[in-house]
């Protein structure tokens, strides 16, 4: 693996040079929020930000996406095809938890039998530059309990670690190494950088103060689909869907048709298991008729079903759902409570 050092004051120059060659999406300030936006001339990416409110999953799996377009004439309907292919791009400044979410989403969208061409096209063409959390930003971060780490390189093509005067840049994948060629001459990092990173990594891990027994509750979930505990978590839930929309690993979507005059398109939009319509059938039957069942589905999907299918928990511990739930439902508490049953 190539390891280089980037002088702190040189980073913006490098990024700005790259953004002349291909779109670079990076965290920038947008009123009170930090959002990923394409860098335009004169814009500088934030590097000392905590994390974005929205997960970066929308780069590969947009909230609304056109799947195909068609034309309706009087006698027939003609497919006019798909939108163009994605362009090569850089997603800069992704936090390790969010970078790891792409590995989990890959398991859903990039399966051997059925591949999702919309997701895969963008995913393959995007280079992910992660920014290690030398200082984990929130008290609600719990990545280490669900298989992640504040300095993890999982899901990153390039990982940047703030070492004080320099960034340590690790070029992890072939995609990352190709980016190195475009970054100009950078001095190689030596063993002392590794040493320093190890220290930072240990202190970052200690800074994660929130812990949940994520793996430990799996046997209980296996056996307790029917349990009075499930009556205790959903009462205050508004079924607003915020938790699922902000979650970097939630991947459910709806497909619908939109017609305007003779032009039509089939689109997909994010959907949520927290909505009753999600499973409502035409006959009137609904297998998950109450919020109790829907909350059980959300938890079970993340901590049991996904584990059954892919041997990973479908939560990267970013804490977004905890911070933004309007009624303060806390998935960490639910998991912890289950572990005490």
């Amino acid at each position, binding site marked *: 693996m190539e390891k280089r050092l980037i002088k702190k004051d040189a980073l913006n120059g490098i990024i700005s040079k790259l953004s002349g060659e291909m779109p670079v999406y990076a965290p920038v300030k947008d009123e009170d929020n930090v959002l990923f936006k394409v860098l335009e001339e004169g814009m500088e990416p934030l590097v000392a930000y905590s994390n974005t409110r929205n997960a970066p999953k929308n780069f590969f799996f947009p909230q609304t996406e056109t799947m195909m377009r068609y034309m309706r004439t009087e006698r027939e309907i003609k497919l006019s095809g798909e939108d163009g292919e994605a362009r090569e791009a850089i997603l800069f400044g992704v936090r390790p938890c969010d970078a790891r979410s792409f590995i989990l989403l890959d398991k859903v969208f990039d399966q051997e039998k059925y591949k999702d061409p919309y997701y895969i096209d963008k995913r393959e063409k995007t280079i992910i530059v992660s920014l290690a959390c030398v200082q984990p930003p929130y008290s609600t971060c719990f990545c280490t309990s669900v298989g992640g780490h504040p300095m993890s390189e999982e899901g990153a093509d390039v990982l940047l670690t703030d070492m004080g005067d320099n960034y340590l840049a690790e070029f992890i994948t072939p995609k990352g190494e190709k980016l190195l060629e475009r970054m100009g001459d950078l001095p190689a990092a030596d063993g002392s950088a590794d040493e320093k990173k190890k220290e930072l990594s240990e202190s970052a891990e200690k800074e994660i103060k929130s812990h949940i027994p994520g793996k430990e509750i799996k046997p209980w979930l296996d056996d307790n689909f029917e349990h009075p505990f499930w009556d205790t978590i959903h009462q205050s839930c508004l079924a607003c869907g915020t938790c699922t929309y902000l979650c970097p690993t939630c991947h459910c979507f709806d497909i619908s048709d939109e017609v305007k005059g003779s032009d039509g398109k089939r689109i997909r939009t994010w959907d949520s*298991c927290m909505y009753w319509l999600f499973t409502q059938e035409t006959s009137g039957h609904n297998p998950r008729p109450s919020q109790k069942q829907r909350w059980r589905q959300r938890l079970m999907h993340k901590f049991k079903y996904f584990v059954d299918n892919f041997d990973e928990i479908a939560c990267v511990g970013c804490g977004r759902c905890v911070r933004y739930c309007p009624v303060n439902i806390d998935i960490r508490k639910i998991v912890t409570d289950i572990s005490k049953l």
Partner: protein
Amino acid sequence: MQKNPYMPMPVDVVKIVTEVTTKDIKTFRLAFVNKEDEENFKYLPGQFAELSILGKGESPIGIASSPTQEGYIEFTVQKAGVVTSALHNLEEGTRMGVRGPLGNSWPIDYLEGKNIVIVGGGFAFTTLRSMINYMLHEDNRSRFGNITVVYGAREPGLLIYKDELAGWEKRDDIDMYVTVDKGDETWTGREGFVPTVCKEVGPASENAVTIICGPPIMIRFTLPVFFELGFSKENIYTSLEMRMKCGIGKCGRCNVGEKYVCKDGPVFSLAELDQLTPEY
């Protein structure tokens, strides 16, 4: 790169049959516009497809024809909501879309060499019809033992595939028991509920498998009959329905526990269902 699994293939509606007196169930015969699509559409009885009407949407529908019937595929559809109503308004000659085949199938390999009992109720007889036609084909008949069919509807006008039923009744390599809950003036056949008829017929459970589709209430009352006859849960198969969109295990809506009905099903044995969460 593989073909885009969300892209419907163009088909022409070549024949429409209204199956029932209430007129809300029709069978659509569809022919592929492109030879290549037809060749790629390799299916087995029990699978389904997404019928696609651009401008309206898609509906998952079981494939009612058998792969032994070449040159077309058939679907029997009840008028229910937006897409199925649009389908019902189509005329022969219209062009529409199909996406599939999707899902698993009746467990053909497992069924080989066994006696097969088929139990159907109402219009949920579609993929069972596919299975029957598949087994009765001259290339396949010797691969299966005795075939017993119990099929019922509320009244004679609601039985689907009537011509075909009559044809099967005449054959001596399949035992047909067609029944209605209540007959009318013209009905000369059997009267009685499906569970009762199954009990009267009493198929032996040895080396036999039952596959059953129908309204939940019919299934509920029929299963005890088969347990009593000695059928184990491993040897009773059924097909599940859940609301679907993608049909390929991505949109996350049709799961029963860790299984996606669209991808891992829709066919499950009762033994498999026992392992899943009872949420369907």
